[in-house]
């Protein structure tokens, strides 16, 4: 089945220790997104890639970076995680075909910062 995969599902890191979260997709979609979702809140868009074009949200901290080495993979790098970065990180994809397409989400990675 075509899908969006996130690894790991649970990640524990230490305050200030860089961490990378991974997302892959078999949908061959052009667009990949990263969202941050804190407890009992709605998902918040951090950035997205349209093919190789990176689009950062204005209020995304510099501490968050992303890489998309190919169509299938996208990574979220948190350079120096703080306690406030503990959250669920959701990856999503969509296939932009001239109209707003549905975003399909992966299962998420729950990040704990000690």
């Amino acid at each position: 089945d075509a899908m969006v995969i996130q690894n790991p599902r649970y990640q524990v890191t230490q305050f200030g220790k860089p961490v990378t979260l991974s997302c892959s997709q078999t949908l061959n979609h052009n667009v990949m997104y990263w969202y941050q979702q804190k407890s009992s809140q709605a998902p918040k868009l951090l950035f997205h890639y349209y093919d190789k074009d990176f689009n950062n949200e204005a209020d995304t901290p510099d501490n968050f970076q992303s890489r998309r080495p190919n169509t299938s993979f996208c990574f979220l790098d948190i350079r120096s995680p703080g306690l406030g970065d503990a959250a669920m990180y959701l990856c999503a994809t969509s296939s932009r075909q001239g109209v707003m397409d549905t975003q399909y989400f992966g299962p998420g990675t729950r990040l704990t910062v000690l």
Partner: protein
Amino acid sequence: AQKVTQAQTEISVVEKEDVTLDCVYETRDTTYYLFWYKQPPSGELVFLIRRNSFDEQNEISGRYSWNFQKSTSSFNFTITASQVVDSAVYFCALSEAQVNDMRFGAGTRLTVKP
């Protein structure tokens, strides 16, 4: 600016009851898209439905139905004969055409008790 309001923070029903989740949106665009997603305890956001602003037909899918009314800027979601497996957080979301930025409401936590 686009905005989505889900006024019901939490709803609790007993199995087999019908339940309606409200969603009210604001946008200046004439072309936009509305979505509902389900987020079970596992964390994955599951796509339920997409509606464009030119299609006000109501939709039914099994026990799920959606009522889209442009006159009141509402896109309500009804679950008929609720089941315990329907327990989840439900998000309504809005996206304007040409802007790949989906805005979520705060979510409604539905608990269905046996």
